[in-house]
């Protein structure tokens, strides 16, 4: 009996052990397999922790994502026409795409940067660059709409842009391609010594963000690739990476890789600002567009500016120095303290780090290694803080966390490398899929990074998703960087070709995000403020239709007296005052695009009827249960008919 009970005890104990083992292993397996999923899972109805703004590259637009979910919330049209909203098609937004080359409905958008105060993200605006037809745009982070675009004269390939100084004093735009300044007819092979590279400083008005091109520094004819501002103690300086210091004008793939070192140009912009304030610089004739969208009139205007102040840097002592940097540096990033300037020689295995303090000391002690076109070249060893021996190949860009670590992308070896700022020791590396370009940590290029996630944006997708023919959207990866080791937690497709991105905590923007435009604040010239104002007016062959919308009808919805050859302007005012109730407008044969009109907003679509008949129009946005009923007719008569204008609703 005793034995039996002992046996039972043993068996029982064994059973507990076994079953607890079993439980434990099941649990840990479960946790292991679901931890990445749990980290990125934002349950239905819940919201993301961060906003991420990814450039769209050749889409010309900016995309808004949530982190960590990788969900895309919006595409903000900036440099490209966008039929989804009518941007660049509506009469109000056409002026936004005006340039000195005329209407340019596309660009290549690369580097978003969120406005800062005291070196920290303040969430007022985000600035982006148009690379191809040089432009800088300011996007409101309350309406998420493009509010302003300024063209950059004397620039070509606006690539080392649009980075801001730490109090958003300036948004800076450097030229990638040097060109004749002013432009003129000359042989290409006389490039060397004759072409110039313009670095433009565009001031940002603190109250309303208005842009003004204050001055351009005319630099030697190198390629100015990327840039970042000094911060903290180095505030007042700006750093630009250069390549093609060889000044080659052909086969750059070979000819621009001859010099062992190119430069990072250190610009003391405060000195130049002061010089210009005191009347320095040369006023040069120019012609560039400045386009402003007014939130109250819902209308953009374009003004051509005819003059720009240029500065010869050799005329401002102490304003410019070159820091030799190996192997055609691409990324030029400054750590959160402002002490270290990281130059990523894109053909190198190593990352070069310059010290701001050592740079000041070298300048003080005049430790120069010659000069280039009158600009002193500092001795490499005198400014070098250290080298990160990465073991990777092809470093491009660096971002920072809030624990003293830096994260650098390596294009050729396709990985993100984490290293310690100050000791230059590599602490972790993780592959990317594939061939990573930029990376982004929210606030990762400010004094106050939020080091929880890094997003790696790749150039090649290949097998990451289901194939969609030869053309694939670019892939991006999210890594959790809260621990010592990076952990790949998500993989998502992007839109266009993301280059740089910017991110910030959701609470910085979410509460300021505008929900509607107030109808009683609508100052549009052609607004229909009440349904009694709805009407049709003729002025020669121009017809203006003042139309309003509310769920679910247009006022008026029957219009007669339009003739073939008329230019018919539909000015649609959306009388809704409720969040997320836009109405759309489209009409058969519309040669532009539909327009999507937000509550309280007015937008205009131009229609040029070419055929006699009775033509329908309708709302394009499913607005209520009676959305399909939201329609109307326009009667178009022959050009010589004498039918009077008339309009009605429900008669």
């Amino acid at each position, binding site marked *: 009996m005793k034995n039996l009970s002992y046996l039972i005890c043993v068996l029982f104990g064994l059973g507990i052990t076994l079953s607890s083992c079993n439980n434990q292993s099941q649990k840990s397996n479960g946790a292991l397999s679901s931890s990445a999923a749990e980290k990125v899972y934002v349950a239905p109805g819940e919201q993301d922790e961060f906003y991420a703004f990814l450039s769209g590259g050749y889409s010309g637009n900016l995309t808004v994502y949530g982190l960590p979910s990788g969900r895309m919330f919006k595409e903000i049209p900036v440099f490209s026409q966008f039929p989804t909203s009518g941007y660049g098609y509506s009469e109000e937004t056409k002026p936004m795409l005006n340039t000195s080359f005329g209407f340019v409905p596309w660009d290549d958008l690369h580097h978003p940067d969120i406005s800062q105060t005291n070196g920290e993200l303040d969430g007022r605006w985000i600035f982006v660059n148009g690379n191809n037809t040089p432009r800088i745009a300011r996007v409101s982070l309350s309406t998420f709409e493009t509010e302003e675009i300024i063209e950059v004269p004397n620039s070509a390939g606006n690539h080392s842009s649009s980075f801001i100084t730490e109090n958003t004093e300036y948004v800076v735009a450097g030229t990638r391609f040097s060109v004749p300044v002013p432009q003129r007819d000359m042989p290409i092979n006389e490039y060397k010594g004759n072409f110039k590279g313009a670095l433009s400083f565009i001031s940002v008005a603190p109250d309303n963000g208005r842009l003004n091109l204050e001055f351009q520094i005319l630099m030697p004819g190198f390629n100015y690739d990327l840039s970042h501002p000094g911060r903290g103690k180095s505030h007042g300086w700006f750093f630009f990476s250069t390549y093609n210091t060889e000044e080659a004008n052909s086969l750059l793939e070979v000819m621009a890789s001859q010099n062992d070192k190119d430069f990072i140009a250190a610009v003391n912009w405060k000195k130049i600002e002061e010089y210009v304030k005191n009347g320095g610089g040369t006023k040069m004739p120019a012609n560039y567009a400045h386009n402003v969208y007014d939130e109250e009139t819902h209308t953009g205007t374009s003004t051509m500016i005819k003059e720009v102040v240029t500065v010869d840097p050799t005329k401002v002592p102490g304003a410019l120095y070159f820091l030799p940097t190996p192997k055609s540096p691409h990324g030029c990033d400054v750590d959160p303290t402002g002490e270290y300037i990281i130059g990523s020689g894109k053909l190198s295995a190593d990352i070069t780090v310059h010290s701001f303090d050592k740079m000041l000391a070298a300048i003080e002690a005049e430790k120069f290694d010659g000069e280039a076109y009158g600009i002193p070249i500092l001795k490499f060893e005198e400014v070098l803080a250290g080298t990160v021996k990465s073991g990777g190949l092809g470093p491009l860009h660096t971002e920072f966390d809030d624990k003293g670590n830096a994260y650098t992308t390596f294009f050729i070896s396709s990985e993100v490398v984490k290293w310690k700022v100050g000791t230059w020791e590599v602490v972790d590396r993780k592959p990317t899929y594939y061939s990573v370009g930029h990376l982004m940590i929210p606030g990762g290029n400010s004094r106050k990074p939020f080091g929880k996630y890094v997003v790696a944006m790749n150039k090649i997708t290949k097998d990451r998703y289901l194939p969609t023919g030869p053309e694939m959207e670019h892939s991006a990866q999210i890594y959790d960087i809260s621990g010592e080791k990076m952990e790949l937690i998500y993989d998502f497709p992007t839109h266009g070709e993301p280059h740089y991105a910017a991110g910030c905590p959701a609470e910085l923007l979410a509460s300021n995000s505008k929900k509607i435009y107030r109808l009683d604040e609508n100052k549009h010239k052609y607004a229909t403020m009440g*349904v009694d104002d709805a009407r049709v007016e003729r002025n020669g062959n121009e017809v203006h239709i003042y139309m309003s919308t509310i*769920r679910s009808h247009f006022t008026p919805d029957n219009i007669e007296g339009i003739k073939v050859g008329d230019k018919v302007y539909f000015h649609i005012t959306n*009388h*809704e005052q409720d969040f997320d109730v836009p109405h759309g407008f489209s009409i058969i044969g519309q040669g532009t695009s539909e327009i999507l009109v937000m509550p309280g907003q007015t937008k205009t679509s131009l229609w040029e009827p070419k055929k006699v008949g009775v033509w329908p129009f309708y709302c394009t946005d499913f607005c*209520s249960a*009676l959305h399909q009923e939201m329609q109307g007719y326009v009667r178009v008569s022959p050009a010589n008919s004498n039918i009077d204008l008339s309009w009605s609703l*429900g008669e």
Partner: protein
Amino acid sequence: MKKLNEITVFLFALLMISCGGKEEKKKEGFSVTRQKTDTEQPVTPPETSATKASERVDLDNKGIGPVTSLTLNPEIDQAMAVTGKEVYDQMCLACHRIGKKFIGPAPNGILERRTPEWVMNMILNPDQMVKEDPLAKDLLLEFNGSPMANQGLTEEQARAVLEYFRTL
């Protein structure tokens, strides 16, 4: 019943023939709808809501929303009514015409049928009202399911609109 069916078929046939005969006069429309309702009688609405929601009188229901109690001054505040008309013309007139049914009901005499609280709650909180208030639910059906839009009026503006209604 069989006979009724035969008559219906005959009428349809007649209708089709007559339609075929006169093309240009077709613009007056067609009367299939009426025929249909004759034969599809079973869809009669429940007897309880014999009176249209818009004509029903309910002076107890205060509706659902921010306004729980409101006593109207016997005197109409004319200045407030003028403000109310301005707000109404801009924000409400697109659907509510004076003196005639349009997208929604006309506001004339509304306080003979509704409490002032109900009216204000309908203006200020339409989304919840059409979901939860029995009267508002019936009104939504009576008016083709066309939703009452939340025009984002302040309580003060809604109160002014109510005062304007008293002048109608």
